[in-house]
Every structure is written in C-alpha cells, then in structure tokens.
C-alpha cells in the first residue's frame, strides 16, 4: 500500500483495548487485530499517508521509521487486500485544506 489508507465504507470498528476488532457486515467477517496492528489502524484517518503513520508509530514505539515501515506496509496491504481498507486518491496537501 503506497497511498493514503482509509477504512472501507461499512467497516465497523470495535475497540477492545488494547486490541481492535474490524467487522465487515457485507460478508459477515470479523478480523481481530493484536495491539501492534491495532495501533497501525488507529492512525488510519483517511488523510495521513503511510509515511506519516510510520513516523507516528515509530515515536510511540521508540523505533526508527525505517525499521518498522515494512511491517506497517504489510499490515495495511493485508487489510486493503481483504477489503477493510482502501487507498484514497488524496494527497496530504489537498487533504490538509491548505
């Protein structure tokens, strides 16, 4: 996933601190994310590109963005492929309203 991720339409997010549960009513499928994956998805806001998400997560986990970016991309790509996320065509500059 190289664009700006956002939740797909209709996906229900259930907080189960520290985990996260995603539900697709259209296919009645539930995905349970562990804390790490959940932290990635919690930063998905439809405006932040992968780089921003990675940087924020790196700050929280006190790891370099370069170290965690492959795993962040893997989580996002997997969820996109399973229909829980989509990529928007927005760019950070157009979404910021600047």
């Amino acid at each position, binding site marked *: 996933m190289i664009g700006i991720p956002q939740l797909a339409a209709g996906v*229900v997010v*259930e907080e*189960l*601190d*520290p*985990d*996260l*549960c995603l*539900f697709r*009513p259209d296919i*009645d499928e*539930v995905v*349970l*994310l*562990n*804390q790490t994956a959940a932290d990635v998805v919690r930063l998905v806001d439809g405006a932040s590109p992968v780089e921003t998400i990675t940087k924020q997560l790196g700050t929280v986990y006190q790891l370099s963005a370069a170290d965690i970016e492959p795993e962040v991309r893997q989580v996002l790509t997997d969820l996109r492929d399973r229909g829980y996320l989509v990529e928007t065509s927005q760019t950070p500059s157009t979404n910021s309203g600047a």
Partner: protein
Amino acid sequence: MTDPTVRLSIVALGVRSDLIGSAAAVEELAGPFADLMDEPSRDAEALPHTTIAVPDGPDPLQVLAELTQGIVERSPLLICHAGLVIGAAGSIAIPAPSGTGKSTLTIALVRAGFRYATDEAIGFAPAGQPVHALRRPVSVAGDVWSLVLADQADPPAAEAEKLIRISAIGSLASPVVARIDQVIIPRRTSLARTPRLVRASAGVTASALLHRSFNHFRNPAASLQTVLSIARGAECWYADYSDATELAALLAERFDQPAAAAAR
C-alpha cells in the same frame, strides 16, 4: 414403543423439550435426568419446542445428545460451547471445544466447591440480559472418573462413559445468572508443571467465544456485539495447566473466596 406419555419436560436455553416414550423407558432416564426435570410453565408453551422419542431400553447418552442438539438448534440465544460455574466471587465461563477437557475441568471445579451451571453450553442474550446455562447430566468417561471422581463408587469401565447427576457430587447453581464475571480459556499442556493464569485480552476472549459458538451465523452482527459485550465486561484469562484438579484449586483460591468477592 407403546402408550407414549410425556414424562420428562425440560425448559432450557429458551427451548421446551419433551421426552416421550413408554412409562418404563422414560422411567429409566429419571435418575440421571432428575436435575433437569421441570414442570413447564404456561409461558413455556410459547417457546420453541422439541420432542424426543425415547426408545425402550434407552441409551441415556444418546437421549442426552439428541436433547442437547435439539435445544441448541432451536434456542433463540447465542449458544457457545462452554462450561459455567458459580463461586463466591461470581461466575466463571470456560469456552472450549469438545475433547479438550472442559467437562473434566468443570467437574473438578464443582468438587473444589464451585456450583455447577453447565459443562456444555451457555446461551447469551443481547447485552445486559441474563445468561442461560444448559444444565444437564454430565457424561464421564472411565479415565476422567479416575482423575476427578476417584473417591466415588461405581465407576464406568475405562473406555465407557457414565451419566451422573451433578447434585450427587456437588452443588447446583441456578441455570440463569446475571452476568459473566470471569472467562477462562483453558490451555492444557504437559509443560505446565503448576497451573497458572495469564491475562487474556478482551479481543482474544471475544474471538474465543465466537469460535466456540454454535449458531453465530444466524445473525453475525448481533452475535459479534454479544460476545464483545461479554468480553468487555469480564476479566479474561488463559489457564495453563496439566492437572484439572490443581487448576480447580487455583481457581477456587482466586475466585471462590469471600475476599475475592469483596474485592470486586
């Protein structure tokens, strides 16, 4: 079968079940099924209904299997494969699949002082409503008997199973409880020399309940909300153990003491 007569009527998990057969055939079930016998109220007439014909010379294990299946298929509740016992500090649900020692652990807990609600299935209504347990005779195999009922007379053969009334070995709880206080996910392993409890997340617990559900497919969205509500409201634990009696003692120390109840 001659002169079919309704002799045993059971209301469980929102289902009325009538076992019918000749007086002699039904009489044979009166012992192990005595804890279940009930006089259905008028309200029960409106419940989903199942009738099970009891053959002469009945096999109680077969009747129990048919009864359980009939109830699970017709219950309007979300049914999960789980044990449920009640202690001084509240209720403990034990979701687990068949063959993993759930009934053995439930019996061990009853022998440790907990009250029995079910060793087979729990029916969950939407959030905030009471939880229903499928009270039933317990089927105990010979090898399990030697582990948790060794002091009891008349064991079955090693490869055989025997139905016992829970009231013969411990205390019965009401089959309707207000809420689930603890969820124990059992992990039996020979590596656990002493039993231990490890915190499980609400997510893991919701997943375990959903995986152990018989009928979540009827209404997946509502079923998800139901298990999420339970997982959020309960304390959740993995229980690593190799000996059910030792784990039961640990759970009794932890969750069946007045101090534990007061701390909640």
